[in-house]
């Protein structure tokens, strides 16, 4: 079974995002970028399936600028077999990404695509669902755990207030949630091996996908700064403030 894992290069989760002075977006110049944390979980899942023999080949795909190749190498160093890099400098919307991924699925014929449930930059959380719709495949989203038996996949999903178990017939899509697994560190021997693994270089045009944006960003602003708190003299004043100012009791 072939498993495909799309990954996105995003602003590192430890870095404080800064808005560009013209409010057109986030300033990404000279800041640390890394693999979207949910995608690391997807990669870990695919590598685990390879190790257990459930998957025969694990392919990592990234659609993004030249530097996205580093993100693919990270996936290869974690244990993926080969990469596909679709180079574009545009900030693609989920629909364009899903269409490119569909074209790759048509070409590669994976039986399972594992994606992060969202990317931590734009937080759309749409690509997995859109790809499932385009492929007309079932989807198990926000996976907390997953198990495969033959061509059937049991996915335990994280839903509001609990867990929901669904059974899917493969080929299928799974999107990963934080608790699915703990991604491994890329070891130095594997980093060196990753250097020799092949990465196919492609462009959106190779797949005949129209990547023109459907959305227009008007402006990006920082969240309002948190106001300083106050100190109350006694419990009576606290109750008064909660009742009459905050209106919570």
């Amino acid at each position, binding site marked *: 079974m072939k498993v495909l894992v799309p990954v996105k290069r995003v602003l590192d989760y430890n870095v404080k995002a800064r808005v560009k002075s013209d409010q057109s977006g986030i300033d990404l110049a000279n800041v640390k970028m890394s693999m979207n944390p949910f995608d690391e979980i997807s990669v870990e899942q695919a590598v685990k399936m390879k190790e257990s023999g459930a998957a025969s080949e694990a392919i990592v795909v990234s659609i993004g600028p030249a530097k996205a190749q580093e993100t693919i190498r*990270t996936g290869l160093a974690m244990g993926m077999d080969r990469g596909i890099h679709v180079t574009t400098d545009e900030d693609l919307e989920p629909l364009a990404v899903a269409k490119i991924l569909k074209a790759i699925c048509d070409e590669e014929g994976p039986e399972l695509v594992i994606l992060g449930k969202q990317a931590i930059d734009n937080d759309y959380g749409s690509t997995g669902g859109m790809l499932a719709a385009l492929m007309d495949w079932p989807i198990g989203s926000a996976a907390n755990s997953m198990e495969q038996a033959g061509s059937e996949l049991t996915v335990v999903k994280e839903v509001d207030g609990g867990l929901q178990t669904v059974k899917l017939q493969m080929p299928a899509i799974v999107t990963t949630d934080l608790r699915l697994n703990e991604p491994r*560190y*890329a070891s*130095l*021997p594997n*980093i*060196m091996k990753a250097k020799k693994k092949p990465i196919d270089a492609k462009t959106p045009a190779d797949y005949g996908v129209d990547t023109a944006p459907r959305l227009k960003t008007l402006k990006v602003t920082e969240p309002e700064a948190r106001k300083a708190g106050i100190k109350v003299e006694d419990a009576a004043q606290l109750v008064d403030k909660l009742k009459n100012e905050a209106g919570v009791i």
Partner: protein
Amino acid sequence: MKNPFETDERKAFRETVRSFVEAEITPYAHEWDEAGQVPWKLHEQLGELGFFGFGIDEEYGGLGFDCPFMRAIAAEEMAKCGFGGVGAAVGGRGISLDPIQRLAAPEIRDRVLKDIVLGKKGSSLGITEPGGGSDVASLKTTAKRDGNHFVINGSKTFITGGMESDYFVIGARTGGPGLTGISLFFVEKDAPGFSRTPLSKKMGWWASNQATLYFDNCRVPATNLMGQEDYGFIAIMNNFNNERLALIAGCLGMMKAAYEDAVDWAKQRETFGKPLIKHQVIRHKIADMSAKIDAVESYMLMICWNMEQGDIPVAELSKGKFFASKALEFVASEAMQIMGGAGYLRGNRIECIYREVKVMAIGGGSEEIMRDLAVRQMGF
């Protein structure tokens, strides 16, 4: 500044070590330091990441290549946890690996090396004696041949990791006085006549153990002689160059950690109506600290590059080591001044870094020995 020697693999390796240290070490480092021990699992985790595999063949669990830049990255990122005992606890085996690979009998090498490189077993090199450290030529432990055995008598001290190590590479005199006349022996922890005791409380490096080893008519098979008789120490002298590089990189990591904490504090702490960092006296400290860090880093990278070309820049490694520990002494002290009382509390990186300046200035070749060696290497 951009690093002209950066490659994708080095960057990826730094990323691995950094994220491992941040997630798996830094949160627990103080606790381990207070407990005087790191969990053995840490040896195994680092072994799996390839931390101990530089210059070791793949069949023994090694990387099958060496890279001074990556050795430096490993040591620098490890030191950033701020508690040097953690790095010492796991890294103690480092200086014994190459001698075991190159000089041990094939039977011994095949049996033990892989486990050590993968962090399943510990090993230490034992040269320093109660009577002297840097003055190796006056080493007093003896080994005398007795049929198919050697009988070792004497003691070793300050042996990092020695209380937990399963295997030892021991320097002992088999010939006349001086550097030649010293042979190396492979000694296992259960060899007859071998015993060990921990060094009592130390100024720093609490998370690691240092042992005194006793050899009381300790008998080892003659096949445990490593390499040529009388020329053992000469054969491993190059080994100390990698150790010195790691110590320079360790100083660099400690300086970066001290600087980072001091700057963070100076931004937050307000005195006389403005943040500390807006006071000129603090700004000048930050400028001086930062310049020294840059200088050590640049020098270290040049040394790495020369090593990568196959040279052994002994003079520069020696100068780099004392220059780095002197810079660390300055940076640690200034960082502590900036942090004031907050830095003086135990559990802070800076409190530990400040104490551990001295192990960097003394261990692995004292500043005085390094200066002397450098000038001798320069031909004077």
